[in-house]
């Protein structure tokens, strides 16, 4: 029993160490984001004489934070709406249809997941250019729909199997059309997996950097990450007070999202991986 307690303490010790490691960079950034550049030079660990909340006001303006936030929200909304709508319908139909064609189509979607983004990004860039979707927020949202449906279809496809086929039959007997069957009966039943799909894709789109960098050229179209990157380039890594406060600002939305949606995010990740 005594040995048991010692192992417990050792485990606790290591967990605390790792937790400190996990939090430390953010904490030190937060601390120093409230200092002047002079104070940062004088001692990283020192407390600021007086918290410089002004840094945040400056960061808000310099990064065009509000606009960038709106852009990011807009892109994510278009992307998520499209992904959920199309892959719920496709996953349902592909799962219910037992035919060679259906299997081939499903296989194609799965195969597309194996392609690394960088191996088709040049062609994608060309297509986006040719379709005049460059610098277009909705256009970028559509691209996310295209890239996101594969995994969402996989998740929906698996989930639909747990919905009894008798339900479809009963609806048909009652004279219910296919679309009504899907939207009034099936889609509400898909809610748990829709939550997973939304969570996983929201995290992906929100934190994606390279695709927006390729597609969005004008700074008034920038996402949060793009404006952070631009700011970092401008200051040449010297104005840390400005940089750190904008970084903390950029982190705020996801941290808030995590606090609110923690359960469904963690469930989404484990379901997405273990059931996929």
């Amino acid at each position: 029993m005594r040995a048991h307690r010692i192992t417990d303490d050792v485990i606790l010790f290591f967990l605390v160490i790792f937790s400190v490691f996990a939090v430390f960079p953010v904490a030190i950034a937060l601390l120093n984001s409230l200092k002047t550049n002079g104070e940062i030079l004088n001692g990283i660990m020192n407390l600021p004489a007086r918290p410089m909340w002004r840094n945040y006001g400056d960061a808000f303006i310099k990064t065009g934070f509000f606009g960038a936030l709106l852009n990011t929200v807009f892109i994510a909304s278009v992307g998520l709406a499209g992904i959920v709508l199309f892959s719920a319908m496709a996953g349902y139909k592909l799962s219910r249809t037992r035919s060679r064609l259906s299997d081939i189509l499903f296989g194609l979607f799965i195969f597309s997941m194996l392609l690394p983004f960088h191996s088709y990004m040049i062609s994608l860039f060309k297509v986006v250019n040719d379709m005049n979707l460059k610098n277009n927020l909705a256009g970028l949202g559509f691209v996310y729909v295209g890239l996101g449906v594969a995994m969402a279809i996989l998740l929906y496809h698996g989930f639909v199997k747990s919905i009894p086929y008798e339900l479809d039959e009963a609806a048909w007997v009652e004279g219910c059309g296919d679309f009504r069957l899907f939207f009034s009966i099936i889609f509400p039943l898909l809610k748990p997996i829709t939550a997973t799909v939304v969570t996983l894709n929201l995290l992906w789109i929100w934190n994606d950097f390279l695709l927006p960098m390729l597609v969005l050229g004008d700074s008034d179209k920038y996402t949060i990450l793009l404006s952070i990157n631009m700011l970092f380039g401008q200051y040449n890594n010297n104005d840390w007070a400005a940089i750190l406060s904008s970084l903390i600002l950029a982190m705020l939305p996801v941290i808030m999202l995590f606090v609110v949606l923690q359960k469904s995010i963690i469930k989404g990740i484990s379901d997405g991986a273990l059931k996929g």
Partner: protein
Amino acid sequence: MTDWNVLDPAPAFVGLANYQEALTDDPAFIKSIAFTLKYVVCMVVLQNALALILALMVESRKKSNAAFRTILFLPNMISMIVAGFIWMFVFTRVLPEWGRGSPFLSLLDRSWIGDASSSFWAIITVSLWGGVGYLMVIYIAALQGVSQQLKDAARIDGAGSLMTFRAVTLPLIMPSLTIGVFLTLNGSFKVFDVVFALTGGGPGRATQPIALNVYEEAFRMSNRYGYASVKAFILFIIVLAITLVQISVMKKREIQA
């Protein structure tokens, strides 16, 4: 397979010349393959081992497991671009200052980002910091799926904790290990954001992964789209081959519970 670039509207067919150039006459590209492979090996081993250890430790806590899970997962929410910039601050300002402050820590006072080998480990550190939480969550879910009865049965048969883990738990969570390794393989071959933010591929091109090499070829330096596509296709072939081998090897080792 063309000499397609941004200026030339009518690309000419050049056959396999691009492939030949990429594989024999492009030291930066060869170097980026080597860097990527080294990175992938380190990440697959370290990230999965660390995530599994953390998952086991978190699961062994009866009351505080949710709190530790939350804290350890938190970095995963942060974009690797933001994380890269924050760690840049840690590497260029915080650690050197600590190193100057105390003779015991003088090891820390060096140019982490400026030197090829230490910047490699800086990239690994940041990637692990951001990535471990995701796998840990998956492994925790897998561990919770292992029935307590089986573990109790093993204990009654006289197995210690280590033995129980090796003989009961590990085989039962093998499917999730397959997924975990698959995810890290797939993800780390594509590494871009963290390197872009932290070192930009530098010093020189010492820490340039394939994805960044392709990006620079296509959009920054030469605008040779055709040639960059060839490199991208080589990346795809490598990833495809390795993941297929990984899945078939690891699937064989899974058992039915």
